[in-house]
């Protein structure tokens, strides 16, 4: 696994995902590794039978979500990531676990750092299904971080 040159950290802007990100930042600083911060924007469903309802431009809204996510991650990099770490945002659209696995295959990090739970789901009863899928399918070691209450 060593040396670590690239770390992938998916976030969903939830507090637990920020805790995982803090650890990813720490590791990136320690190893002098690049940090790829990924956010997956969920695809907005189209209503059947209409491509645009008056006033609803779905592709445009989707794009806005992507842009805002990019900006938000850039802010987070300024505020939370140790100075000197080469960090950059990656935004994709689709189903979270699938996209994370895909990006991991493309980017080939030495390690993925992810929170066990994110924004959705019932925290105490269910192991976050995104983290679970990622651990199962990603080809590199995955560091799972449980949020501290």
């Amino acid at each position, binding site marked *: 696994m060593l040396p670590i040159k690239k770390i992938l950290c998916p976030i969903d802007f939830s507090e637990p995902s920020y805790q995982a990100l803090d650890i990813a930042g*720490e*590791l990136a600083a320690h190893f002098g590794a690049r940090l790829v911060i990924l956010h997956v924007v969920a695809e907005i469903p189209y209503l059947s039978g209409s491509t645009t309802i008056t006033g609803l431009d779905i592709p445009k809204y989707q794009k806005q979500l992507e842009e805002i996510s990019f900006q938000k991650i850039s802010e987070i990099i300024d505020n939370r990531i140790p100075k000197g770490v080469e960090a950059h945002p990656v935004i994709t659209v689709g189903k979270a676990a699938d996209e994370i696995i895909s990006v991991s295959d493309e980017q080939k990090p030495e390690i993925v750092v992810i929170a066990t739970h994110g924004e959705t789901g019932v925290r105490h009863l269910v192991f976050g299904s995104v983290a679970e899928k990622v*651990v199962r399918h990603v080809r590199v070691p995955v560091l799972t971080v449980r949020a501290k209450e």
Partner: protein
Amino acid sequence: MLPVTNILCPIDFSESSYKALEVAEEMAVHFNAKLTVLHVVQDIPVLPALPTNPSIDVPEYQEKLEEAGKIALDMTITDKVSSIVEAQSLIKSGRPADVIIEVADELKPNFLVISTHGESGVTHFMFGSVAEKVIRHAPCPVLTVQAEDTKS
């Protein structure tokens, strides 16, 4: 999470668990950290009412399993962990996931390294239930290492 001074790696003597041990060793060397290699011997099942003439003396056999486990564990460490690492073996009995979590609560490692699958279970269909439980409840970050050869 940094600095790393203390790493816990549970193994069940499966090839996959040795992959996790490799990664744990790498990290222990890199961080000059202590490495605890844990093996959990499963409790021999006893029914609420013991057979009147059990063909094995359960407590005695359990003890023998633990002794054998300790020997195997020490050999594994000698074989697979570099002598520059300060490594210790730890044998416990009980339900693997529960014991791993208890040991993590006691030892407070900076993180735990575990294989996604171990000896039991159908590797391709099921995410190892021990790893899953450990990830869900461990008091520290858990580094999961894929069971299959990642290069194949």
